């Protein structure tokens, strides 16, 4: 286990506060928690790709960053009116 994988494992603990905010907060607070979780997961995927020495896995992080942006915008737009 190298430093990259240790960092990825440590970052996974950051998902716990995000989950608490998502479960207990208002809908907009839950959206903030979701966006924070998306950022965390993107960074974790970068760390895992480097930790396992698999450069193609960086594409997963890139795609997740794009999808986090798109999903966050859709959720924000939806919460303006319908939730």
């Amino acid at each position, binding site marked *: 286990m190298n430093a990259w994988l240790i960092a990825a494992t440590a970052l996974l603990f950051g998902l716990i*506060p995000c989950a608490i905010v998502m479960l207990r907060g208002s809908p907009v607070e839950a*959206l*903030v928690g979701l966006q924070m979780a998306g*950022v965390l997961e993107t960074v974790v995927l*970068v760390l895992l790709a480097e930790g396992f020495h698999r450069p193609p896995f*960086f594409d997963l992080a890139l795609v997740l960053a794009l999808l986090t*942006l798109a999903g966050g*915008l859709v959720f924000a737009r939806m919460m303006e009116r319908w939730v």
Partner: protein
Amino acid sequence: MSLVSIAVVVLLVFGVAVELACCLGVLVMDGAYNKLHFLGPAAIVGPLAIAAAVVVQESFSQAGIKALLTAGLLIVASPVLSHATARALYIRQRDHVEPELVGHLRRGLPTSGTGPDAAPVVGADMGGPGSDLGLGGRP
């Protein structure tokens, strides 16, 4: 332990610490507006430090360039997402406050305020504080 390894570990520790601190900030702060402030460092400082660690380790290879691309995408996306979320929260709060105002304005009564406890003021001037909303109230 080489100089490169030390630099990588320092950058990783810094990036992970920033991310975890921002997670705790999101958990601890009250209100979505205050929580939103912690998305900025988490999406800018942390990914930049970790992408820098990858570049220090791998130089500008495929991995380094993709890590920088990912960090750049997060840096561009973070303000957009924060703005969209804050706008959604503002619109929700405005629409949740205004229904009582809207009712008063449609009945042609001025209101005593703009909060949720806003009540019609009978016998007062018809130009209430909410009458500029364009909802059919008297001028």
